[in-house]
């Protein structure tokens, strides 16, 4: 579900107050860049996609059904939840290390970032939890982005540095939250010890339970 209008209004109103004389179009255009940076760094926008695996076939195209564009493969699990070695050398195409003997279903986890087109009001299409959860943090990125523009009414290099620094800190914090799968006080999320390998032979991304070391 995309962001609600009330959340978008709240976001834009905050931005209008801080960025005197900035246009909505300019704010929204800068928001796209800031959000893209946010998602690319934090990997906080994830989606699980089921694929029907056919015997002796290793390449599968995946398409996100909840919007956005695929960025990184986080992992593949089978119907029992066990990790399957796989890579994504081409964006949107999963390559399994080993073909299966029977037809089955795997679940592919990917992280995503923004994609065009935007919604009818040109606001980027993001999940409904983004603005309530991260709107404040993204606003700091927006302020930093716009205040660093040259020779505009809202230009303020000193405050741009302040906001960008806070934005960097927020991104780092959010990335850690994501690695811990948004739990408090836990370690970075992994499968039980028995399931992971310490070599690269598994050929899986670092976000996968099987880790590179």
């Amino acid at each position, binding site marked *: 579900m995309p962001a609600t209008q009330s959340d978008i209004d709240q976001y834009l109103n905050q931005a209008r107050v801080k960025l005197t004389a*900035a*246009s909505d*179009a*300019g704010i929204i255009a800068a928001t796209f860049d800031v959000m893209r940076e946010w998602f690319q760094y934090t990997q906080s926008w994830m989606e699980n996609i089921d694929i029907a695996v056919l015997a002796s076939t290793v390449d599968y195209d995946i398409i996100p059904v909840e919007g956005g564009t695929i960025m990184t493969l986080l992992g593949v699990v089978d119907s029992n939840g066990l990790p399957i070695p796989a890579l994504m050398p081409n964006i949107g195409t999963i390559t399994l290390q080993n073909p299966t003997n029977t037809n089955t279903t795997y679940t592919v986890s990917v992280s995503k970032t923004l994609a065009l087109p935007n919604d009818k009001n040109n606001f980027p299409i993001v999940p409904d939890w983004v603005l309530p959860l991260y709107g404040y943090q993204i606003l700091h990125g927006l302020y930093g982005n716009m205040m660093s523009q040259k020779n*505009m*009414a*809202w230009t303020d290099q000193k405050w741009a540095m302040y906001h960008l620094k806070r934005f960097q800190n927020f991104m780092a914090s959010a990335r850690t939250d994501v690695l811990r799968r948004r739990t408090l006080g836990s370690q970075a999320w992994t499968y039980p010890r028995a399931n992971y390998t310490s070599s690269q032979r598994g050929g899986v991304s670092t976000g996968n339970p099987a880790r590179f070391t």
Partner: protein
Amino acid sequence: MGVTMQTFSALKTVEDYIGDARVLLQDLIAPYRYTDAQLLVALNLALLEGFRTRPDLFIFDRCYAKDGIQQFQAVDTTEVRMELPFRAAFVFGTCSHALARDQEDTQDRRSDDFQNVMQSILLGVRRKKLSSTRPGVTDASDTE
């Protein structure tokens, strides 16, 4: 009987822009000093000037993406696609161009003033006072 309030137009259509420009130009009674065609040219040029200084205002205008900035051929009810806070700028821009074509010294000054107001609204800087065109009034009296 209460006082009848004139309905406020939020400068939505070409008619609104040209109509308001005529108010500022004190050109409300036919035959007009400035024809509709002349004011249309002025409005179209004001939009081009606006694009030069604030291209972000036109980012999502599909017309711009395909054919260039929105331009008009007639004074009618065609919508001028512009964000509310910046609409007034284009009325002042229209007036500025209209006045610039007059061959009168006082009008040159007034044209500059309207142009300054337009830029002030677009760029968000403190606007200059509209200067007096009375003879003998110097620039010093215009400073804030």
